[in-house]
């Protein structure tokens, strides 16, 4: 399968995502420059982390106007799997492909560290090899990851099972102490109503090798790859 990793000016986790995806058998991950306008031939799309356009103005707010975003919207509407990590998540929110937005961390400082996430819904194409309630250890690295949505949207998302992962402690308890940035409901990642667009602040590509401290990120990519195989099978 072919996965497109979009490279915006200022993306800096593009090659990390490419390396992580390429470690799965049968996956060809290709960097796609943001000035391209078509994603034909790709089975899945990843919007990687970084500081697209320097994150000036507001995270993701300029990148959503990049030429490639038309194609991203098109394939997302057609049901192709789209994964946004960190800055990629922010771009998806700015583009309206995911509800809500990401505000400045409540303590105003950038935070990079390993954290725990609890899988809230294993019924998405990005969590299918995991089980609900499972605790993953995956690092974060962001200054603006404080998830916000209005109460009505949040309610709908809860009802629809769109909240995919929440920050928790090592035992899986969703507590205020385990919340690194002030996100509503400790939300770390959400999916679209149709389940095929998934955005999260933590970096699964950084947790794909035991020598780098853990492999809990692999489950997310594995789920995505299996979902694509199923769709095409």
């Amino acid at each position, binding site marked *: 399968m072919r996965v497109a990793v979009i490279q915006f000016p200022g993306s800096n986790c593009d090659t990390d995502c490419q390396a992580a995806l390429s470690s799965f058998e049968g996956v060809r991950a290709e960097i796609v420059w943001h000035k391209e306008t078509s994603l034909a031939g790709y089975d899945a799309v990843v919007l990687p982390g970084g500081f697209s356009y*320097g994150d000036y103005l507001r995270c993701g707010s300029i990148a959503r106007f990049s030429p490639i975003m038309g194609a991203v919207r098109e394939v997302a509407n057609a049901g192709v799997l789209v994964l946004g990590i960190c800055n990629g998540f922010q771009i998806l929110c700015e583009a309206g492909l995911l509800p809500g937005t990401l505000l400045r961390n409540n303590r105003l400082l950038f935070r990079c560290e390993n954290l725990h996430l609890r899988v809230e819904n294993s019924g998405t194409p990005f969590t299918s090899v995991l089980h609900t309630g499972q605790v993953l250890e995956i690092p974060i690295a962001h200054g603006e990851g404080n998830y916000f949505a209005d109460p009505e949207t949040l309610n709908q998302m809860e009802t629809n099972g769109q909240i995919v992962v929440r920050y928790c402690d090592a035992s899986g308890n969703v507590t205020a102490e385990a919340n690194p940035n002030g996100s509503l409901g400790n939300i770390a990642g959400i999916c679209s109503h149709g389940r095929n667009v998934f955005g999260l602040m933590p970096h699964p590509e*950084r947790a794909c090798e035991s020598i*780098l401290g853990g492999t809990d990120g692999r489950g997310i990519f594995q789920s995505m790859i299996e979902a694509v195989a199923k769709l095409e099978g």
Partner: protein
Amino acid sequence: MANPTITPELIEKHGLSPEEYEKVLSILGREPSFEELGVFSVMWSEHCSYKNSRPELRKFPTTGPSVLVKAGEENAGVIDIGDGWAVAFKIESHNHPSAVEPFQGAATGVGGIIRDIFTMGARPVFLMDSLRFGSIEGESDQARTNRRLFAGVVAGIAHYGNCIGLPTIAGEVYFDESYSGNPLVNAFCLGILRHEQIARGAAEGVGNPVFYVGAETGRDGLAGAAFASRELTEESKADRPAVQVGDPFREKLLLEACLELLATDCVAGIQDMGAAGLTCSTCETASRGGTGVEIDIQLVPQRAKGQTPYEVLLSESQERMLVIVKKGQEDTVKQIFEKWDLPYAEIGVVTDDGQMRVRNGNDVVVDVPARALADDGPLYFREAAPFTPPDPLDLASVPQADPLKILPTLLAHPSIASKRWVWRQYDHMVRTGTAVLPGSDAAVFIVREANKILAASTDCNAVYCKLDPSVGSRIAVAECARNLACSGAVPIGVTDNLNFGNPHKPENFHQLRAAVEGISEGCRAFNVPVTGGNVSLYNESPAGTIDPTPTISMVGLIEDASHITTQAFKEAGDQVFLIGEIGSELGGSHYLLAIHGRKEGAPPEMDFGKEKAVHNALLGIIRKGLVRSAHDCSEGGLAVALAESCFGTAFGASIDLGETGQRVDVDLFNESQGRVVISLSPSNRSFVESELTSSGVPFRFIGTVTADPDLSITSGASVFNWPVANLNDTFEKAIPLLMGA
């Protein structure tokens, strides 16, 4: 606007001495233009010319079979790491800018060192930082200012490094009154490249076009190099325009564009515009190429209207490069810059007359011999004051404090306490290679494309250097090497940042000379070349001169992933050994400083023979897979090292030092060198003992890692017991409490 007339006052304002001005006159054979005066001023500042330090720097060992580009030849040295791969690395200071504008000062320090690395054709892979501030404790105005500087510098480093996508994986932060008003910000970058990718900063090929690429030139950072070569005074705040403003996003584009460009065969030479901006890059490339360069100021992309040629020449606007393009390849170059949306312009041409010639349209405003400007600057042999070694510490004058209280107090001292508050603000994992996170002895980074494992450490105990600059500098090198050994690495090269006071003062010059000699001895002892670095003099504020701080950064190679070792204990029941002696030296120790408020005595002795034997013995058993953890004893001595090995684990340790015949505080907190705490599986104990015995290093069994989460240390008849959780709490919370976050 007409240029001012050249007067003695104007010359003095440009920092040129009457003798230096005479030299300008004899080089030119006429009076310089205003622009030329500015050009000589920045090029002959200490920052660019090393006029006060060069004779000393020649003492460094800079050669070796692995050296591909030597110190001083180019923007950074390059070292072979095998299989056709090489590393380029360097450390550089941004002290003065950070003193007046901490956020941008530190940010552009990071930006500058990254440019030095990719100018060499290397892809930057990680960063480190060595920082010094005045005390951040208490409610004095000075403490508040120091906290503001500390917070601003860390945020500035985070801003630049995180955005450009380079992990900051290691560093050091010390707090001492001598840095009040004059913080130190030394930034390190390492990049990786194939041997054949080494790029040169020479203007080769007469007739080749000269391209400018990157950010537009503005009025920021005017004559920053000259600003950096003066003492800081009350009026320095007015120099804030001398501080540049960084744009890491632009630099990310510039980095990618330059690496893409260098992968083609279009580039004859490349040079970043750092200190002294356009001036330095044009005359240095011409000088290196043995050619001349002619540019037209009017073609330079500019951010502001109405800038004078003087301003454009001396601006230190960031994120700019000068590229000498092979004639006929201009279109390829343009395509790449356009892909990355970077401003660029063809601003000149390589000539054959050896002149750096700057035109403003039809007017020639600068016409000077490039080599004379770049390489024939003044050179001073300063006077060094005679040095009397410090008296050894009189132990009887040190009242014995209660170790039970000392250990937590030391762990809460900001220089020793956890720096998590700092490195949590840095993305230390991007580029997915960080195998050992910040907080252990050395950072370990896997370079996937090269299949190499690198380790890096940066160290300098300036208290030792203040007391005895020679010994302190020797220890800085040894500690770096020891940190690498603890991580399983063999050192391959050193870059140094020499931070000192005004060299016109003989006692300061002695410190510089003694440090260079001490570092040189250390590098010879560990068989590593100095690959380059930076000199920052004039680190003085109205409060006085900083403690001499020759920061050492050392890079090492780890042969095999199984050799990667960290400081944390791994399993209950593991045996704890001390390699080296119990030690007895309290002079210059943090115990003396933090508990007794005394910065005195002779620093610990540095015997390179013993030190090297310890590293070799340690590496020997690491490579045989016998070591579970290794941690060196540094500030705070053995007790602090043991506590740190318990942190981040569920374990405690039960330690018995036996009857040593000396005071308990000496046993626990002395800072004698060449000591490492290791832990190993009980099943390997006899093997390790026989290995260490045959390598001839002193060692002793001192205890066991316990499931009981207490640290217990017995010395003679005294037993001390601390719950690890309490110690860890003290260690982790000290800096966040002071910083209110």
